[in-house]
């Protein structure tokens, strides 16, 4: 299949033109590129908390999702918890999967690669001696994060590998996990 022929049919549901247009517009008004993402969490009971996301800021003003989204966070019963939702660390994995997958779709669209299926399996390894304060040499967070993609697309293995590499390069969540960030926690 020639590049031209492939270009005609490719639709990954990504509006590349809009994304490229946004990049052009933001080049003229870089301050509009400053976004702030927000979540609000209310503790329910035990390790159960409920978080919602709705508004955020960007493009020079306040923005909002179409609707608010709610997330239950808890721990499994083997932690003597009520298991009302995924653990916070699982949400981190969810975020990484979502970010990389969105990146794969966008890059594929831009490279005229048709995706048929994309499955990401994300694993975060952790030694809980860290969070239990049992061993100071053990860190609290993941000591290893692995993502395994199964991708069916009209492209060579090398092209798909390049998609995955590029999606990591442009991924916010990959950067958040792989690199340090200043964190400022205060009492209001």
């Amino acid at each position, binding site marked *: 299949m020639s590049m031209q022929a492939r270009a005609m049919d490719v639709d990954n549901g990504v509006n590349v033109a809009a994304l490229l247009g946004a990049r052009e517009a933001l080049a003229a008004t870089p301050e509009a590129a400053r976004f702030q993402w927000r979540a609000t969490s209310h503790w329910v009971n035990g390790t159960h908390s409920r978080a919602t996301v709705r508004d955020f800021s960007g493009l020079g003003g306040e923005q909002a999702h179409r609707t608010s989204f709610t997330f239950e966070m808890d721990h499994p019963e083997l932690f003597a918890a009520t298991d009302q939702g995924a653990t916070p660390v699982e949400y981190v994995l969810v975020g990484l999967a979502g970010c990389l997958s969105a990146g794969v779709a966008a890059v594929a669209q831009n490279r005229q690669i048709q995706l048929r299926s994309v499955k990401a399996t994300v694993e975060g390894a952790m030694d809980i001696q860290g969070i239990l*304060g049992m*061993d*100071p*040499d053990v860190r609290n967070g993941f000591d290893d994060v692995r993502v395994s993609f199964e991708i069916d697309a009209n492209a060579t293995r090398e092209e798909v590998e390049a998609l995955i590499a590029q999606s990591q390069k442009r991924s916010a969540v990959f950067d958040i996990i792989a*690199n*340090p*960030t*200043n*964190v*400022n*926690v205060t009492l209001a």
Partner: protein
Amino acid sequence: MRAVERCAFPVAGTTTCVVVGAGHAGLAVSRCLSERGIDHVVLERGEVANAWRRERWDSLRLLTPNWLSRLPGYRYQGTDPDGFMSMPEVIGFIDRYARAIAAPVYTGTRVTAVRPERDGYRVSTEHGDWRCRAVVIASGAFSVPVLPALAAAMPRDIECISARDYRRPDQLADGGVLVVGASATGLQLADEIRRSQRPVMLAVGEHVRMPRRYRGADIQRWLDAAGVLDERYDAVDDIARARRVPSPQLVGSVDGSTLDLNALAARGVELVGRVAGLRGRELQFSGSLRNVCALADLKQARLLETIDRWIDAAGTMPPGLMSCAPPQRPDPTRVRDAPRLRLDLGRGEIRTILWATGFRPDYSWLQVPVFDAKGRLRHDGGVVAAPGLYVMGLPFLRRRKSSFIHGAEDDARDLCAHLQEYLARGALRAQVA
């Protein structure tokens, strides 16, 4: 076979107890053993007070004032009770103590192995073997620098040095220095290297903040008076954690000034988070700087509240605390809005990394199965998990003051009492048999 073995390992002597190390802790034990009439020798790899002579930086002074410098049957005799001993003064103090108590010290006698033997131990040295019933390990808690794993992967053109090998700023290459670690050691070295006009960056993890003076007296005066330093190992909630607490950010300053992160920042030292990783030539710092500083500020406030409560309850002040100033609180640690998270080691900004990331004891010669999975000695307040084996001088061994010079006395008395009972039980068994 036995005869051959004896020939191969000539016995330098037989004694009841071998003390390994003639620093302040080993000598304190020697004095207490002598008081109890227990025959012993003190084996010293180098000279008396060897680590103080050879493994400390030039400008170091004790963190504790002179009046607090005491050992069993001995105390500071000089004219400056509120001063802080320099290293030559510490060496002189310990040397004079060794002579005053006529300690049976064999200098230049490095212990190469301690092995269990029937009814005791065989202590091998470069000059033959000693056989004994009991061994007291007093070879020091701060022998081997503890470096993070990534220290081994630093780019070759970055000079790396540990606090044990550092002596003075002119030993370092010109250019910037990253000091890693914010205990007393890291702060003092960052300060003196900054004063040598080099750019200095200080990587700060969890630390213990403490003012040099509080309410008109040295902080050690209050800690001593309020009994904070006497707190016992079996009275704290989590002794493993208490033993890991880094040394407080103190300096034996001639003028009584406090050395803290605010003082360093005011002198132009750049504060960054703890070293979190190395990716290629880029060193990464944790984003937790603000939190570790907040933790240390809160912990300091709790300590000062303890002192305030003690003062309120005490009514009459002990000598030296007559003029008690009103309570005050040091300024919170100031942290910049967005501390640097990355350092490109290829840009030449930093030429030297100085690891002030702590020390551990060296037990490479101890061939007795008394170690936990992480290579630490298993012991209960210095009574090691093997009959007749004891250890001295480790942080919070028996009391919060255990690793300080003035902390040796109570521990040595406790452990020598235990040791004497152990010997007596053995003697009783021998009689019964």
